[in-house]
């Protein structure tokens, strides 16, 4: 049997191979990750990636897979490729049998009566669910500091943010607490955490993965996607969760391409890769820019043709996003009113009417960032401002789509840094919402246009030794190209580093609390 310390560092694809070969059991694998969570997640200086750990159910599913495999025959052969490989789920995605909080006090202790479609698919593939991961409240933020349950820490430097909103999923994977995780991406919430934690994150084409059961922030932008340590692992997970779902009216009817095959192609020879002029240079940290240029050189050496494209309307993307997203969020979050689920707070004085109960419930249940966005959205949608704000922002969306169309006429995929900076310090931007928003400047255009994007580790910035993310973008429905180019770049970079980037991450000591408990 492999040492557990080695086991947790294996990719999901490698774990799946070892499980199939009978070299290790799913119970051993699942227990190894649960032990890791117990060792590094809790306590004062813990990663705090998990809001809930699903020990019993995860081990039961693992045991079931082991039993099927041990019995052999048709049932064993029919097991999904990733059967027995554990996974963590962002706590914005509803699950039967575990609490779902969305990182908010308003849903504290709430249990969903149904499973999200992606969760049903994980269950059908018999992947043990390790637990639910931390996030900015209702996925609103770029640092996980807006979680009502305390921030997640970046495994590379525990005093820094793990990105957001899906900082929990990214940190869990970076800290070897899970081989895979699910995230959601509205403006970069999968890709930016991937960038700052040295992991892989993918926002699929809008509609290619069902949103049913993902608590909605901005319905026309939200997308569930995979989080992993390798490009191939994300492709494999994407294949588990993707494909049409009649429960989501925006779900694409298209059959899913063979994404893992694309990741295994191993060539970018003759492909045209477009640098987006507006998404690098000024405003981007020097170390980010250096790693970005290094990736371009590697792709060029591998036979890709690098071209420059211009997307002049991207400069309006952030502004338009901060009108569309809050508008949709203000409408989506109206359902948290203390009537059908979640918190109910009664006003301390005065008449007890439902309106006043709603006001008191939402005042107590929502955090500052959520309130800010609801107010901003209500403003943008209000009479007299609708055309100037929401209407104009929707027009900008058309301009961004046109920019992408023109760019993809010149290039097969586009490339940029995922985020303008490496991980900032916890607390650094908490009181400056606008500075926080700027961290998503490179990721937002993909959501506005519905195109897929992937972030993979591009190395460490010279000035601070922290991970830099490289973003690839492809036309809608061409997610396979991201995996093809991403896997090639990953392998070129790993050759250069002599192994995965995460092998260079500092060893997590684990909290004294858990060590004492042991």
């Amino acid at each position, binding site marked *: 049997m492999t040492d557990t310390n080695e086991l947790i560092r294996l990719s999901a694809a490698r774990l799946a191979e070892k499980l199939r070969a009978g070299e290790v059991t799913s119970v051993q694998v699942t227990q190894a990750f649960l032990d890791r969570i117990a060792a590094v997640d809790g306590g004062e200086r813990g990663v705090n990636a998990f809001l809930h750990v699903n020990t019993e159910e995860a081990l039961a599913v693992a045991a079931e897979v082991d039993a099927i495999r041990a019995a052999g025959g048709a049932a064993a052969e029919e097991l999904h490729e990733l059967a027995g490989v554990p996974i963590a789920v962002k706590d914005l995605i509803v699950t039967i049998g575990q609490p779902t909080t969305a990182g908010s006090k308003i849903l504290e202790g709430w249990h969903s009566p149904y499973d999200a479609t992606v969760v049903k698919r994980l269950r059908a593939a018999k992947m043990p669910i390790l637990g639910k991961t931390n996030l900015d409240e209702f996925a609103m933020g770029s640092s996980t500091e807006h979680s009502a349950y305390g921030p997640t820490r970046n495994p590379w430097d525990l005093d820094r943010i793990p990105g957001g909103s899906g900082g929990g999923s990214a940190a869990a994977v970076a800290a070897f607490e899970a081989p895979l995780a699910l995230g959601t991406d509205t403006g970069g919430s999968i890709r930016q955490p991937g960038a700052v934690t040295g992991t892989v994150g993918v926002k699929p084409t*809008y509609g290619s993965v069902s949103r049913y059961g993902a608590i909605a922030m901005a319905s026309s932008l939200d997308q569930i996607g995979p989080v992993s340590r390798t490009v191939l692992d994300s492709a494999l997970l994407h294949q588990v969760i993707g494909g049409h779902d009649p429960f989501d009216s925006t779900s694409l009817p298209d059959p899913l391409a063979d994404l893992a095959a694309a990741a295994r192609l191993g060539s970018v020879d003759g492909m045209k890769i477009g640098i987006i002029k507006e998404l690098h240079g000024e405003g981007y940290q020097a170390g980010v820019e250096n790693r970005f240029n290094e990736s371009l050189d590697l792709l060029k050496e591998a036979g890709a043709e690098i071209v420059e494209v211009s997307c002049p309307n991207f400069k*309006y993307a952030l502004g338009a996003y901060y009108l569309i997203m809050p508008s949709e969020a203000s409408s989506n979050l109206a359902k948290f009113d203390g009537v059908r689920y979640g918190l109910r707070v009664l006003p301390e004085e005065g008449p007890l009417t439902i309106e006043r109960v709603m*006001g*008191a419930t939402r005042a107590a249940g929502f955090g500052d960032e959520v309130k*800010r966005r609801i107010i901003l959205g209500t*403003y943008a949608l209000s009479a007299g401002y609708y055309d100037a704000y929401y209407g104009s922002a*929707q027009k900008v969306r058309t301009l961004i789509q046109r920019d992408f169309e023109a760019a993809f006429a010149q290039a097969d995929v586009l490339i940029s840094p995922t985020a303008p900076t490496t991980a900032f310090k916890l607390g650094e931007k908490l009181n400056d919402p606008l500075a926080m928003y700027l961290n998503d400047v490179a990721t937002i255009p993909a959501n506005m246009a519905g195109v897929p994007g992937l972030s993979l580790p591009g190395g460490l910035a010279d000035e601070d030794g922290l991970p830099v993310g490289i973003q690839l973008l492809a036309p809608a429905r061409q997610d396979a190209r991201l995996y093809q180019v991403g896997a090639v770049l990953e392998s070129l970079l790993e050759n250069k580093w002599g192994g995965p980037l995460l092998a260079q991450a500092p060893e997590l000591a684990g909290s004294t609390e858990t060590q004492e408990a042991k």
Partner: protein
Amino acid sequence: MAAINRDDVAHLAQLAHIEMSAEELDRMAGELAVIVDSVKSVSEAAGDDVPATSHPIPLTNVFREDVVGHTLTAEQALSGAPDSDDNRFKVPAILDEA
């Protein structure tokens, strides 16, 4: 475009059913003014000839056969309710009795 002020925020908070203290209104008005100012340029970006996009991937309406499908039981639907009675959600008075 008009700037956002404290009175606007108070009105919007009321529309959005969020009670806010005086201190919160002051702070929120300041923060939102900065954000609103930063998104101003959006209204000048596109001319009248540019159509609006509400949805990233064009889709037509989706229909299904009108048959009873998966539904939650009353018990499941009420399982997370703060208060319920006789298979219904229970709430305080809908109208102000004053």
